[in-house]
């Protein structure tokens, strides 16, 4: 076990090279609807139970089913209203269970990235062949269903192995959503490939705000607006990224969805300064225009420590 994963170098927020997003925008904004499938009776992973209660966890399971039947559709209509596209954190198995949801996302030109096969199948304890099989399944299943080549990864239920980031880099993924150290992207130190950390968020993720932090809907809307305002202000110095990760079984609830819509209205009203886009578009721009400047700046400041993540 390592004290420091060495996945990226320390790189202080001040005095970084300036990022200007396409169209002179200051903030790249993206929305990550998590479209997930949780199994009724998942197999036991030795490191973590599939559900907090013994299976079947009826309320937990059926609440997530509600998200798939009702919640995503409310969210899609809301995003349509503001002309926003989602970048879907997808439980790959859902393609087989609920293809109607996938079709609705494809119609809207939404992006898909992998969030594992099921959110009840964790990476803990997988050997390399198993983890590769899961990633190859992800790439092939989305390709077959939608024609899209996935470029992003958020480990199922945020469970990792030491080799996860090296593997996705090798499979030509462009970005990882599993690292929360920054409000700007940063190249990751993988053995091969060209992988970056993409600002996702736990702080304004509805699982955290409605779960761990027990916010009311209007407080969550206020937090989103304030988060956005601060990052937009800082984006004038160097472009920032804000992501709102969502789970329809939480945010789309009847007593919450209107408040969330208010936050989106606030954000959409700043479209002149904000690049409202998808994660792969941010990653594509960053790889081409910002990647080299970042590495040069880290080297220039004497902060490059070499090596790769979890290397012996």
């Amino acid at each position, binding site marked *: 076990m390592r004290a420091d*994963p060495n996945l990226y170098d320390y790189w202080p927020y*001040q005095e970084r090279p300036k990022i200007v997003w396409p169209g002179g925008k200051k903030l790249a904004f993206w929305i990550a609807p998590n479209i997930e499938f949780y199994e009724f009776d998942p197999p036991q992973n030795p490191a973590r139970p599939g559900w907090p209660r013994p299976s079947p966890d009826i309320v937990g399971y059926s609440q997530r089913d509600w998200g798939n039947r009702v919640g995503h559709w409310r969210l899609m209509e809301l995003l349509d209203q503001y002309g926003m596209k989602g970048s879907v954190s997808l439980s790959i198995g859902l393609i087989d269970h609920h293809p109607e949801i996938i079709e609705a996302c494809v119609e809207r030109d939404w992006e898909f990235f992998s969030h594992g096969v099921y959110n009840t199948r964790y990476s803990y304890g997988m050997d390399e062949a198993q983890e590769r099989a899961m990633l190859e399944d992800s790439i092939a299943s989305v390709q077959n269903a939608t024609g899209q080549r996935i470029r992003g990864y958020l480990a199922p239920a*945020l469970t990792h192995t*030491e080799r996860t980031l090296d593997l996705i880099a090798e499979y030509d993924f462009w970005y990882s959503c599993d690292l929360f150290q920054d*409000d700007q992207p940063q190249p990751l130190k993988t053995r091969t490939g060209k992988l970056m950390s993409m600002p996702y968020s736990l702080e304004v993720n509805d699982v955290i705000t409605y779960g761990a932090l027990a916010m009311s809907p209007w407080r969550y809307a206020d937090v989103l607006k304030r988060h956005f305002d601060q990052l937009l202000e*800082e984006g004038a110095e160097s472009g920032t990224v804000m992501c709102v990760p969502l789970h329809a079984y939480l945010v789309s609830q009847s007593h919450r969805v209107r408040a969330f819509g208010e936050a989106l209205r606030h954000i959409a009203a700043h479209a002149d300064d904000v690049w409202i886009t998808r994660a792969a578009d941010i990653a594509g721009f960053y790889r081409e225009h910002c990647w080299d400047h970042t590495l040069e700046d880290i080297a220039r400041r*004497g902060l490059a420590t070499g090596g790769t993540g979890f290397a012996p």
Partner: protein
Amino acid sequence: MSLPDDYLRYPHRRYGMDQDRYPWRLSIDRPRLAWPEGKAVALMIVVPIEHHMLNPSGKPFKHPGAMQTPYPDLRHFTTRDYGNRVGVFRILRELKAGGLRAVFPINGAVLGRFGPLIRAIEADGHEIAAYGWDTDSLHWGGIDLDLERSLVAKTRAAFDSHGLRPTTWMSPARQQSFATLDLIAEQGFTACLDWEMDQVPVAVQTAMGRLTCVPLFNELDDRKLLIDQRQTEAEWRDQILEACAHLKAEHARFGGQVLSFTLTPYVSGQPFRLWAVREALSALAADPAVWNADAAQMAEASA
């Protein structure tokens, strides 16, 4: 089964304290402190710079903020790292905007890792304090004395090697052994932020002479209020300003007292919380009754 007979013996049952680090003293009996320029409230802001490693032992208990999910818990490693990469620079900017001086306790083990941050803290004129070796090296009642002495010495040596000579100490998780005060005094520390037994600094006895405990109030800790207790940023800001107003109102009776609180980079440095930091700091900075000082200055002014 019953408890041993001596369970009902009380060897320290007498007037005053049950330890001899400092005497019992009622707030009403304490000599009035006069802060510089007749200010009513001494304001100490503490910004803890702590590194949370991916593989802590968590012994004998987990430092607040330590990893929570099975290894490798990249989620908590990176959310804590956010504070030292991004959040702290927002806090530095707000402190500068208010013309405020803070105390930055830093784990000895990460002085090298966070070089640019250390230089930014120094350039802005804040006090740098020692914050123990790292978040997994706790000082606690069961620690071996030689091991603890070596931890304090190693921490001092790390600061020396970076040309820093802190006089203020804060223990990881603000936890101590029965000997910690002696050991930090031995290494030349003259102020400590672990104890909060009065509204003013208190001199404590050590094997090496006196040391001043400048109180840091756990009940105003940003992490505790905003994360553990899920309070809103507005409630947190209001409590800081309420404390300030109360201490001002008490000035006539009790003299100068201390207002202190933490700004934890991975908590207060979040974009959606910064507005409340800004409002609290600007109100305190503009208050003519407030003397903003660091721990060393408060220890000196209260001596």
